[in-house]
């Protein structure tokens, strides 16, 4: 061994030798049989080797960093439980955000894990395959750490006891479920565009960052910790999202219109899904960090603007209807909260009319819309409730065929008119809530007619029985505890008892 020992390989070179060199072109079986799914979407890839690895973690480093994160996280979860951390939150109303998260988002994390496992097997390029596999196992991490963090809340509060079961059945949970089902049933490149790019790169900041900061502000250290611990993986995931987009765009110009259409679709689908988060931020955090509108400005208008400027050179434009979505940021959290206020007797979390200071905060944050359209309505509902006439809507709403949100959103230039679109397919009429959702339906009607629309299913008798109460039992709700207004709930009663004891002590 005469030649001088090279002490250390550079990170790129080392990663390439330890990873990229592993695969081979199969000869005993046709490559198209080994990888049957990565061509049918019409994405042309000439050179998989041109894939730029978005990050370069080998498994030794992966286990090292991840186990360190896990050690820290579980130490916090343990201490949160041992010290009854739930007593340190600002107000029990806050827990309703956690309920929505555990039933709506955590099952979606597991869906993501399975989706990335699928594409982690199906791409013929070794670079994207390894990146997807790592994300698959990360997403499993997120599902499990969320369940473990929120397990403590489940011991003390209602509405958290049946997350996965509810996710498969409850009407508003079909919004996130259908989103992820849609992505998972798409081809592998569309899956990555939907989850890695549209969701992780463009929109995930809106979900996690302000929400986790909000959790910190509201004394929920368990959620802050899992949130930030999960976000530390997200940086890798976002990078993968951008890498796959650039890879497709650079490989063949025929890919450009396909990618553009996917971006348009998944941006719109993502913003619809995130209205649940908008509502959490503006209405469910007792102490607020920033409004949905502000988060939208920082994370979509500013960060997204720079991103799409960067993609311009490939011939990509910002997603269609981005302008409408930006207008919607003034309205949607209020409209969504109103929908849930109407139907909270059929939801596994509580709603309420915000207190006066909270209404003032909303007035301040939404000077163009709140006082004009939404505050009077909330004050009216408050008056009705105080007079013993808490309003619950007893008719079932029509759902959008695509996003599955009740058709209660308005035209943005006329917030007193419900936005309403429809399409014909094979002699039947299908309704959508917006031009964005209508476009999605019209491009792939054969997919969206399959949707398991909760309200249709209830009327068809597939959900436990004809009465609302039958349906709620079928959802596994504890009636009178999981549902209805926060005022008068067992959660509220217990919280007040804890507070009283605290004062005495």
């Amino acid at each position: 061994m005469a030649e001088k020992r090279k002490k250390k390989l550079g990170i790129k070179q080392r990663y390439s030798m330890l990873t990229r060199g592993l695969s081979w072109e199969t000869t005993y079986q046709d490559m198209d049989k080994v990888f049957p799914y990565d061509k049918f979407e019409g994405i042309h890839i000439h050179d998989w080797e041109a894939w730029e690895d978005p990050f370069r973690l080998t498994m030794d480093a992966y286990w090292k960093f991840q186990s360190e994160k896990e050690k820290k996280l579980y130490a916090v979860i343990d201490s949160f439980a041992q010290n009854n951390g739930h007593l340190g939150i600002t107000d029990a109303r806050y827990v309703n955000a956690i309920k929505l998260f555990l039933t709506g988002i955590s099952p979606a994390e597991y869906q993501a894990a399975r989706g990335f496992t699928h594409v982690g097997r199906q791409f013929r390029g070794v670079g994207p395959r390894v990146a997807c596999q790592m994300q698959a196992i990360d997403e499993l991490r997120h599902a499990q750490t969320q369940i473990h963090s929120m397990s403590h809340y489940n011991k003390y509060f209602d509405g958290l006891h049946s997350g996965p079961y509810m996710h498969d059945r409850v009407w508003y949970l079909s919004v996130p479920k259908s989103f992820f089902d849609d992505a998972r049933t798409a081809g592998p490149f569309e899956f990555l565009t939907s989850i890695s790019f549209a969701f992780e790169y463009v929109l995930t900041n809106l979900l996690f960052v302000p929400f986790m900061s909000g959790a910190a502000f509201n004394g929920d250290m368990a959620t802050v910790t899992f949130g930030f611990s999960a976000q530390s993986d997200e940086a890798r995931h976002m990078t993968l999202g951008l890498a796959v987009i650039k890879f497709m765009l650079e490989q063949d110009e025929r890919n450009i219109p396909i990618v553009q259409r996917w971006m348009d679709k998944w941006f719109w689908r993502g913003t619809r899904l995130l209205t649940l988060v908008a509502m959490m931020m503006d209405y469910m955090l007792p102490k607020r960090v920033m409004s949905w509108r502000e988060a939208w400005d920082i994370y979509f208008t500013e960060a997204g603007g720079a991103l799409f400027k960067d993609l311009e050179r490939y011939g990509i434009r910002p997603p269609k209807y981005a302008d409408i979505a930006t207008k919607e940021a003034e309205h949607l959290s209020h409209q969504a909260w109103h929908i849930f206020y109407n139907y909270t007797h059929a939801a596994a979390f509580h709603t309420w009319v915000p207190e006066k200071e909270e209404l003032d905060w909303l007035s301040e944050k939404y000077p163009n819309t709140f006082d004009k359209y939404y505050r009077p309505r909330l004050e009216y509902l408050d008056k009705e409730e105080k007079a013993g006439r808490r309003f619950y809507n007893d008719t079932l709403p029509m759902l959008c065929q695509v996003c599955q949100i009740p058709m209660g959103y308005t035209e943005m230039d006329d917030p007193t008119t419900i936005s309403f679109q429809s399409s014909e397919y094979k002699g039947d009429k299908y309704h959508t809530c917006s031009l964005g959702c209508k476009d999605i339906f019209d491009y792939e009607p054969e997919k969206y007619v399959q949707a398991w629309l909760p309200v249709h299913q209830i009327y068809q008798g597939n959900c436990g029985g004809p009465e609302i109460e039958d349906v709620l039992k079928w959802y596994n709700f504890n009636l009178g505890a999981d549902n209805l207004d926060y005022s008068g709930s067992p959660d509220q009663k217990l919280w007040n008892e804890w507070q009283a004891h605290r004062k005495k002590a």
Partner: protein
Amino acid sequence: MSRKVSITLQNNDDARPIIEAIEKDNPDSTVNIYPAMVKIDCEGRLIVKQETVEALLGREWDVQELHLSIVSMAGNVDEEDEYFELSWNL
């Protein structure tokens, strides 16, 4: 239109020297403090240098340790042994 890149880090002891190093190496950056996190914006380009972090920490620091503290980012990533850089193509 503004072409800001950004990095968001947890506001904790592990991240503090990294934040300080970023401020040092990117004099034009703006530091925004939120509950539990710090978001640093910079026009066009932002770099985290191993050398600077190591000097502040007084020990060896692997650039990939950044993954323990990072919350979010915006920009194209270039990760090397000696640095981690975010940029938009100007």
